[in-house]
């Protein structure tokens, strides 16, 4: 698999998010697949239980089937998607990459970070993971690192805050 690194500059030490995050994403994807399939299966079920009367048209099977297939493909891609997420700490900027089909490589100078968020939810918490979001003055900066080990997230936050203060510049 050609890594996303080919978009980024050479010579950066990319780090990946925790492998445990694959499980988190799998759980999330599985739940959403089930929910979508269930919702889209409602007309079919109504048809099968004879609420509408008459024979059930075959195309009522399509929506839940599509949802199921889509979910299965997503589930298969999850490990690769998670492996595509990465970050590298350069001396003055943080580099982030993500995406399998739609790839982005983002550069955020430490001095530009306004604040760093650490978030965690019940599932992330169960795996002792946290997600780190960097905010700059620009709303279009999309710098999220999901699924870092808690200690790594704390370390990164400390590091980023420290470096941010070091390189801080006004608008």
């Amino acid at each position, binding site marked *: 698999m050609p890594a996303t690194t*080919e*978009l*980024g*500059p050479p010579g950066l030490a990319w780090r990946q998010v925790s492998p445990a995050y694959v499980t988190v994403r799998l759980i999330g994807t599985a739940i959403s697949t089930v929910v979508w399939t269930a919702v889209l299966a409602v007309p079919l079920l109504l048809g099968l239980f004879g609420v509408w009367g008459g024979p059930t048209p075959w195309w009522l099977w399509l929506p839940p089937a599509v949802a199921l297939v889509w979910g299965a493909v997503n589930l298969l891609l999850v490990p690769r998607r998670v492996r595509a997420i990465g970050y590298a700490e350069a001396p*003055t*900027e943080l580099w982030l990459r993500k*995406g399998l*089909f*739609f*790839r*982005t*490589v*983002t*550069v*955020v*100078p430490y*001095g*530009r970070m306004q604040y760093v968020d650490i978030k965690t939810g019940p599932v992330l918490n169960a795996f002792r993971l946290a997600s780190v979001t960097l905010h*700059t*003055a*620009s*709303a*279009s*900066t*999309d*710098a999220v690192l999901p699924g870092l080990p808690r200690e790594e997230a704390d370390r990164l936050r400390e590091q980023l805050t420290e470096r941010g203060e070091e*390189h801080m*510049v*006004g*608008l």
Partner: protein
Amino acid sequence: MTGRGTQSPAEHGPSRDAEGVWHRVHPFTPFVRSWLLLVALVWGIGNTFLDDVISALVKHEPINVDVGGAVQLVGAGLALAVLCGVLGLLIGLGLLSWWFTRYQITDEHVRFRSGWLFRTQRQARLDRVQGIDIERRFLPRILGLASLKFDVADGGISAMELSYLRRDHARQLREQLLAAAHRAAAQEDPAQAQLQGTGDGDPAAATVGDLTDRPDAAGKGPGRRGPRDGVDVRVAQKHGLLGEQDELRRVSTVPTGRVVLSLVCSPPAVVVAVLAVVSLVSTAWFPGALIVVLPSVLPFLLAVISGLYSRLEKSWGFTLSEVPSGVRTRAGLFNERSSTLPTGRVQALEVTKPLLWRFFDGHRVVVVTAGKGGAADAESLGSLVLPVGTAENVREVLELLLPLEEIPVELVSEGLNGIGGTGAFTTSPRRARWLDPITWRRTGYAMDDSSLVLRGGRLTRHTSVIPHHKTQSTALAQGPVDRRMRLSGFAVHTIPGSVTTSVDHLDVEQARELQRRQAELARAARDRVNGGMLERAPIGRSDG
């Protein structure tokens, strides 16, 4: 004192009043203030009574008003009399309130008194006046009136309004007040004023000083001269006596002819023209078609016309001036609006050259700024700094607004006129033509040490300038198709605004190189700015 406007009463005698002397505001004031009420009243009367009454009088018929028995009972004459009485009473009350509305300007204070039953008096100390602005709302503007708004740092009140005065009187009064305020402040603490005036610690003061020292800049402007005559700008600025709205130098004014031309050549106008032609042709072929079609097109037409009107409001009489705190734009036909862009706050700038504007060399310049007013400002005038101007105007705007030492004037002009990868610009590779058949030779970027210049658009050409030290972050983005074709998009993230800050379909190698170099140059630019800031203002940095 200023030597302008000879007919104003305030011109005679000194600008200060003795204790007992009071002036009145313009007699129209109460009516302008409550114009809505008056209009509603008159309209109501006209609607219910006058129509019937007048028609009856004209036709010499017995009056037959269908507003209920009351009028018929007492007779039309009496009803009219009552109405006139009410109107007269209102006018009387208005005049009474005018009579008791007075102001006074003494050595130290501005006092404003109003009310005849419940009297109020407000006063502001002149040496606490931060700025005096002239406000012109719609109705007062038609009547040639204006109000003076005081920004006061006085603990008690924060704003005081003197309304309404004749426009030229208001203008003159303001200049005198600014001078008087300056005097008051100087008397209070002359040593400090001297010290602060000559100190070069404040970059803003230094800028103003430069302007003052440039006689050609002061005398050249076609507009009125600022209130600088008689006021030492530097000292006045130190004391906050020059309002943010006080003009130091007028940079450019958009002539009315060009405004009209720009509107005629704008998309809404073209739409209207096309609609007109279509409707004419269709009526010629099928008479009566227009009557069927018009009602359905009307809402759309109204939207187009309102768009046209908003363009007109934004560009009519547009002036760009230097003011102590930065650059001020002002425009408006009926509702004059002005907004100030503080120095060095411009985050990104875009010059646009629409297809139809090419034949008269028209450009529009839009900027993105941080802070100051926020979204409301950006929505109105704040982001538009040149509605329509020549290449020369664009150059002036660039030099004035970009917070850079070297302005990439050449790059911008190439960005507007160049095509293909021959000059300083790197464009999309040839294989991108499948994705971008029209614009691929225009899409491109160029960089110098201080800023990144992006260009694009074939018909409507646009060029953005993003100073390196203002960029927040950057990103390369590549979709599946891009990847197959070894292309990639590049985006610079700045404060959100209406400026294009991304290029699509660059060669992936070049895009990577661009991101790497941009990061490097931005780092260097930030360090430069940081270093400069350290030299100028060591306060707040412990390591100095």
